[in-house]
C-alpha cells in the first residue's frame, strides 16, 4: 500500500495530529516565505548577483542585504526541521507510517550528522533515505505527477551521488569516478522543471503565464553576456548544483515554467503543492547542507500529507486531484 493509498478512507485524526494540523498550514506558509527570502537573499543576492559584472551594489546596501540574508537563513533552518517534525506526527496518525518512519529516521540522522556522530556514514544513509522517501511518495502519486517528481528526485540523487564519490575519493575509500554524472543530473533536473505543468489540470491563467515569462526574461537578461554567464555558472553550481552545461536561455525557460506552475497552484488555493515545489526548488540538486536536503524531503513529503490533517484543508482540491478524483479549479 502506498503513502497516498493509505489515506483512503481517512482515519480519525488524533490529538497530536489535530494540534499539528491546526498549526501545520501557518508553519508551511511562513516557512515558504522565509525559505524564499533565504534563497533569494543569501544564495541569490549575496553570492551570485553581486558578482555579475555590471551589477553595482554599494557596500551599505550589501551590508543590509547580508544581515537580512543571514537572519532569513537562521529562521529557515529551525522552521524546516520543525515542519518536518510536525509532518512526522501528522503522517503517523493518519496512517502514512512508512513515510513517517523514513522522515523520522532522516531527522535523527541529520541530528547525528550535526553532532559529528557517525559522520562518515550519515550522508550516504541520508541520501538513501531520500531515495526511499522519493520512491514511496512517487509510487503513491497520481500518474501525471509522477513525471516531474520522479525526475526531480532522480536528479537530486544523481547530483548527491557525485558528492559522495568525491568524498570517498578524498577519504581514500574509493576511486570510482563518474565525470558524466553531473551533466546527466542537470539534464534530468531540467526535464523535471519543464514537466511541472503536468500537475495542473487546466491551463494557467494569463497572469500566471506573464509572471513566468517575466521571471524567464529577468534571468535571461541578467545573465546574458559571456562574463555574466560564466559567473552565474560557477556560482549556480556552488549554490544549486547546476553543472552549467546549457545556455542561460534554457535555465531561464525552465525556471520560468516552474514559477508559472507554482503561481498557478498558489492562486488555485493549492498552497501545499505550491509549497512542495518551492521547497524542492530551494533545495537545489545534490548535497550541500542538511538544511537543503531537508527542504527536498519537505517538498516530497508535503505531497503525501493527508488533507484531513489540515484544519482548513486548503489543499483538498490538490489532494483529490492527485488521486484523480476531482478537477482542480485553477
Amino acid at each position, binding site marked *: 500500500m502506498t503513502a497516498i493509498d493509505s489515506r483512503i478512507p481517512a482515519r480519525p485524526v488524533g490529538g497530536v495530529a489535530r494540534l499539528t494540523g491546526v498549526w501545520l498550514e501557518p508553519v508551511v*506558509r511562513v516557512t515558504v516565505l522565509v525559505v524564499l527570502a533565504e534563497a533569494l537573499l543569501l544564495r541569490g543576492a549575496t553570492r551570485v548577483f553581486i*558578482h555579475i559584472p555590471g551589477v553595482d551594489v554599494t557596500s551599505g546596501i550589501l*551590508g543590509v542585504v*547580508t544581515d537580512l540574508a543571514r537572519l532569513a537563513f537562521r529562521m529557515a*533552518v529551525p522552521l524546516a526541521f520543525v515542519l518536518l517534525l510536525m509532518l512526522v506526527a501528522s503522517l503517523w496518525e493518519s496512517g502514512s507510517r512508512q513515510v513517517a518512519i523514513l522522515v523520522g529516521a532522516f531527522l535523527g540522522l541529520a541530528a547525528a550528522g550535526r553532532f559529528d556522530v557517525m559522520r562518515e556514514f550519515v550522508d550516504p544513509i541520508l541520501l538513501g533515505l531520500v531515495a526511499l522517501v522519493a520512491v514511496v511518495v512517487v509510487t503513491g502519486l497520481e500518474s501525471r505527477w509522477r513525471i516531474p517528481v520522479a525526475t526531480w528526485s532522480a536528479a537530486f540523487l*544523481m547530483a548527491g551521488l557525485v558528492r559522495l564519490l568525491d568524498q570517498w*575519493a*578524498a577519504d581514500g*575509500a574509493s576511486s570510482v569516478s563518474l565525470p558524466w554524472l553531473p551533466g546527466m543530473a542537470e539534464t534530468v533536473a531540467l526535464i523535471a522543471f519543464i514537466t511541472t505543468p503536468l500537475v495542473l489540470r487546466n491551463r494557467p491563467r494569463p497572469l500566471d503565464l506573464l509572471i513566468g515569462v517575466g521571471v524567464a526574461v529577468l534571468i535571461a537578461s541578467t545573465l546574458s553576456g559571456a562574463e555574466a554567464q560564466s559567473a552565474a555558472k*560557477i556560482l549556480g553550481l556552488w549554490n544549486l548544483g547546476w553543472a552549467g552545461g546549457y545556455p542561460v536561455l534554457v535555465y531561464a525557460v525552465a525556471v520560468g515554467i516552474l514559477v508559472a506552475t507554482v503561481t498557478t497552484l498558489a492562486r488555485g488555493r493549492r498552497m501545499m503543492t505550491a509549497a512542495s515545489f518551492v521547497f524542492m526548488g530551494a533545495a537545489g540538486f545534490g548535497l550541500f547542507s542538511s538544511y537543503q536536503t531537508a527542504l527536498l524531503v519537505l517538498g516530497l513529503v508535503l505531497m503525501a500529507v493527508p488533507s484531513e490533517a489540515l484544519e482548513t484543508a486548503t489543499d483538498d482540491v490538490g489532494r483529490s486531484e492527485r488521486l484523480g478524483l476531482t478537477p482542480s479549479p485553477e
Partner: protein
Amino acid sequence: MTDTTTTMSRRMLVVAGLALAVGLMTQIFGLDLAYSQTLSVTVWSSEEDPGVDPDWAGWAAVPGAPVPLTAQQIATPLGGGSTPSMTVQTVHADGDLVLRISWRDSTLDTSTASTELFTDGVAVQFPADPRSSVPAICMGQADGAVNIWHWRADSQVGVHSVPDIGDGYVDRYADISDTYYPAAASGNPFANGEAVQSLLAGSFGTLTPMDEQTVIGEGRYIDNEWAVVLRRSFAAPTTEHPQFEVGQDIDVAFAIWNGSADERNGIKSVSQFVRFSISEAVVAAPSTPTTAASSSPPSSTIGYVVVGLFAGVVLALLLVALIWFGVVIKAFVDRD
C-alpha cells in the same frame, strides 16, 4: 476579512515571531542547527614532522582529495582555467597545519624577469574568522574577510638564488645590493625574500599583505607536476588570521596559476570552497611498510556497490517517469 483568514494571519504572525526569536538566538549564540554536506578533506594527525618537504615519504600515506578547478570568470581580468584539477593532502604535526597541493603542469615557469613572462603559483584561501559563515569566494566580502596564502615559483627561485634577469633588459645589473633592488630596499612585499605571502582581502581590490608573515612553503617540480607544501602554526598571530584547532571544520578554496598560459592576477584556475576537518586520526608513519592508503590503491568495491544501489533507484524513478510520460502523450494523442 473572514474569520478563517484572520485566524490564519494570527497564527502566521505567531509562527513568524517564534522563528524570528529562535533565529536571533542562534545568531547571538552562534548555533548552527544544520551541518554542511560539502566535500570534506580530513586533516590527519602526523606523528612525524613533514617539514615543508613536498617529497616527504609520509605523503604517500595521506589520501589526496581531488579538487576541480574552473576559469576565474567573475572579476576582471577574467580567464585562466588551464589547470582542470588539483590534489590536496593535509596533515597537522607539532601544532602546525601542513598542506601539500599538487597539479599537472607541462611547463616550468619560474621567471618574471621580463614583462611577457609569468610565473606558476598557487593560493589557498581561508575565512579570516573560521567561525563565520562562508564568505564570498571572490576575495571575501565587506563583513567577511579572507586570509590568502600565496606561493609563487618566481619568489621561491628568488629566495634561493639571484633571479636570472638575463635577457629581460638591455642593461643587466646582477648586483644584489639594495641599490639595484629598490623594491626590496623599500619593503615591497613582492620582494620580501619569501616564497609565500600571507594576504588579507575584504572584497575585490582590497588584497593586502599581512603585517605578520607566518606561512612558510616550498615547491618542487618533477615530471611535469608541481607539488607545493604550505605550513603555518595553529595559533593565529592576530584576529585577522584564522585560528586552527583539532576537531574544527574550516572552509578553504584554491587557485592555480600557469605562467606559460599567461595566467596572472585574476586570470587563474579557481575552485569552490571545500571543507577541512582537522582530525585526531593519525596517519601512518612513513616508515610503516603497510598502510591502507600507501600500500595499495583505494578500494573501489564500496563505491561500486553504492553506485549500483543508487543507480537502481534512479533508474526506477526515471522508468516511472518515462512510462507515465508515454501514458500522458498517448492520452493527449487519443484525445485529439
